[in-house]
């Protein structure tokens, strides 16, 4: 008997050792070594937010809403960092997405939206299959909303890493027992913004987009310098919008561009032309011709716009199209100041890829590169002039482009190109 057992004993001990070493490596080693530092851009939860987090856990919100923004996600905000979970006593990352990710939900919607949404999601989002949480008390709904509004870089918990002060939220009526914030009483965290601050915040959110179109900048350069059929067709239109640069007195070629980019990754091979209408019609015939060329291309873009975009964005490009009536997220108003910040590659990217989480389609499947560029010309014109300016009517042959590209003549001082530096690709 004893010999028989010995035969099983040694293999058992061996397997036990292997198993415990694996558990040591995959559970205990991370327990000791994986300790993210305290984040400088996020404050701890308030007692109210912790109550909201308990409700979030209790009602099983995390079965359908993950709280990790991944690199491949559209419109879910910046990628989650390990330090984002620093203050979590337990994780709520989740394993499935029936609804959108909530890692960066804070500040995306007003408080009232969340309150309504939790009482009946169909109030604000038709077609949603989220359960009604109408059995929660009012206080519970407020706590939950406070928790949600604290998530992410635009939430009430976001701190300025330099100063350590709250970035967007004012917790005037909130009681802090420890730490740098000492207020009075705890209420639903609110954004008390003045209109100008709200505008600054909006611009802040759009800044993200300026970093995205790196790929499309490359695509535009391909159109400018490439030899493909599409590049040749689009080049004329593109030259109305941008000025081709020179390096060391020579025209930019693929090789010289590569070389230049190795030295300076943010190098731009073009500068943008301004679409601002001058106060008085220029007298210089060359200047007038350049201006008219720009108007002509903007008008072509308007033809396309009327055909494809005006149903939602409105004939005046002010976001009041007929189809916008039923939309939960309103189409953009291109008269808005923030669109003056859009560069041609941003427009090109925006039109090409569409806007995730809205009805805006990905036009790169429908329109050619040239057509998207004329749209970009039109939108630059609208944003710069805050309206349709001198674009009168629409071209009868809208959507069609001149067979021969008409290059824009060199620009003089009055039509100075907008040489706005664009941030390099975010590392």
């Amino acid at each position, binding site marked *: 008997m004893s010999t028989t057992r010995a035969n099983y004993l040694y293999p058992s001990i061996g397997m036990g050792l292997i198993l415990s070493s694996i558990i040591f490596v995959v559970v205990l080693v991370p327990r000791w070594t994986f300790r993210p530092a305290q984040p400088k851009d996020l404050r701890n939860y308030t007692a109210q937010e912790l109550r909201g987090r308990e409700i979030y856990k209790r009602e099983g919100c995390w079965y359908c809403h993950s709280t*990790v923004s991944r690199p491949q996600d559209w419109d879910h905000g910046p990628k989650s960092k390990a330090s984002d979970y620093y203050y979590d006593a337990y994780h709520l990352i989740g394993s499935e997405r029936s609804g959108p990710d909530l890692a960066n939900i804070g500040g995306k919607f007003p408080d009232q939206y969340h309150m309504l949404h939790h009482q009946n*999601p169909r109030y604000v989002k038709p077609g949603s299959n989220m359960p009604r949480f109408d059995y929660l008390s009012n206080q519970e709904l407020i706590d939950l909303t406070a928790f949600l509004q604290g998530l992410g870089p635009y939430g009430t918990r976001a701190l300025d890493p330099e100063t350590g002060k709250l970035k967007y939220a004012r917790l005037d009526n909130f009681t802090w027992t420890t730490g740098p914030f000492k207020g009075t009483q705890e209420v639903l965290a609110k954004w008390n913004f003045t209109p100008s601050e709200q505008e600054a915040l909006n611009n802040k959110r759009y800044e993200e987009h300026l970093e995205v179109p790196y790929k499309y900048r490359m695509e535009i350069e391909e159109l400018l310098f490439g030899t493909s059929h599409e590049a040749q067709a689009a080049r004329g239109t593109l030259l109305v919008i941008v000025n081709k640069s020179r390096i060391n007195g020579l025209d930019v070629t693929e090789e010289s561009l590569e070389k230049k980019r190795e030295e300076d990754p943010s190098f731009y091979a073009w500068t943008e032309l301004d679409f601002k209408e001058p106060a008085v019609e220029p007298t210089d015939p060359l200047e007038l011709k350049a201006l008219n060329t720009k108007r002509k291309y903007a008008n072509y873009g308007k033809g396309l716009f009327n055909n494809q975009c005006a149903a939602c964005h409105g004939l005046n490009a002010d976001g009041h199209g007929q189809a916008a009536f039923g939309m939960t997220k309103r189409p953009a108003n291109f008269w808005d100041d923030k669109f003056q910040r859009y560069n041609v590659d941003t427009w090109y990217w925006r039109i090409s890829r569409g806007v995730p989480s809205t009805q805006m389609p990905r036009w790169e499947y429908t329109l050619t590169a040239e057509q998207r560029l004329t749209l970009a010309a039109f939108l630059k014109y609208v944003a710069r002039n805050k309206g349709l300016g001198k674009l009168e009517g629409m071209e009868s042959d809208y959507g069609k482009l001149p067979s021969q590209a008409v290059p824009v003549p060199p620009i003089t001082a009055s039509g100075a190109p907008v040489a706005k530096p664009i941030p390099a690709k975010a590392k």
Partner: protein
Amino acid sequence: MDARRDIKLDAEFGSWWDRFLAWLDVEHSASKRFMISGAIWVLVGTLFGLIAATEYYAPDLVHGVAQLSFGRLRPTHINVVAFGFISMSTVGAIFYVIPELSRTKLHSERVGNILMLAWNAVITAGIFCITNGITEGREYAEMPWFLDIPLLAALLVYCWLVWMTVLNRKEKQLYVTTWYVAGTTMWFPIVYIIGNKVFFDVPGAGDAIANWFYGHNILGLWFTTNGIGLTYYFLPKITKNPLYSHLLSIVGFSTIAMFYTPTGTHHLLQSPVPEWLKAVAVISSIMLLVPVMSVLVNFFLTMKGKWGMLGTNIPLRFIITAMWFYLLTCFTGPFQATRWINWYLHFTHWVVGHAHFALLGTFGFIAWGAIYYCVPRVSGRQWYSRRLANAHYWLSLVGTVIMMTSLTIAGLIQASAWEEGTPVYRGVIMVAPFMAMRAFSGVLIVTGQLLFVYNIFKTLIFKEDPLEDPLEEAATPATPSPIQA
């Protein structure tokens, strides 16, 4: 008549306490009662699942009732089917199989029965806690801490029972099933301790690592090892073929614990946890093909020459169906654990479908097969109805297949929609028809379970005589057709 005589005998036995102790000591009763509990929990658990699936498609169906909210029904469903149905049925079968393999009796029938009562009490309390919002908020470990501790105690008692039975064996040689079951008793308490916050507390993102270590290993080191171990017993026993290869069974057993243990982090591949841990998880997930292939090759070659028995032998049919689902699960599993496929499929319904492949398709079918096989042997009574068992098989199979199909398609739709830049909530509208299909498959499965529970009650509780042939024999041949004659 039988029942009345029993009561009379019991009355002669003594006080209610003595009668209770006698009730606990009946031979094979722990195994039988564990399996009856499993059968009841499968009906309850799938019913929870069906309500949740219906609400997913029709969210306004129930509102204003906190206990019936989707977010509470989903964890209830998971806990009841995982810890109630599959665990209890498997333990019931183990309490029959391990004594058989050891040529001895279960070490203590009384402890086994008390364990059964305690386990049922914990599951019942778990349902009340989770539906009332008392939850730990971690997947597969939702039960609150005051239920985790009794559940761990129950697990340890179960381990003790298995070990004492094995140590008191009359048969010197240990069969593969005993390795698997005894091995599970060694490692599963550790997994359970790491997985529950009350024993092992990590803050922040590290909590997710511990959670998914447990979340994957409850499948790999509890359901899989018990289910595969039982199959190693049933297949040779039913087909009367010898096991195809002893060597393959050694390979399968010795690699399963090694490669299953580190896989948990493949649930967090795009989350901010250490990259080396993800690499370990992905590699070991792919290496899982080794134990899976060795086990499946062994099983399917053991079936050589006996495939015809599938038509007549219902327990065998359940188990072989489970093995085909196991093949599908474990071939998709390693690939969807790789970074590039996980990138596409993570967070979609595909993963939910995969979980049902594993738990319902594989271990659910093994549990049903085990119950169909063991009940006549532990109770000495043939099954009440072969037709009901047959109907249970087909309803479960068709329901499971429809569920897999709809969830898999829905997952692919979601994944491609997100890849396109379509917002998540529009993806919800796109997959709505498939969610209706999923709810319909739930109706089929629940109907099957109703027949199953009816059958097991008629057999064991009301002790009615069988209507038809036993499950493991050929059905009565119909009158020969004129052509054959």
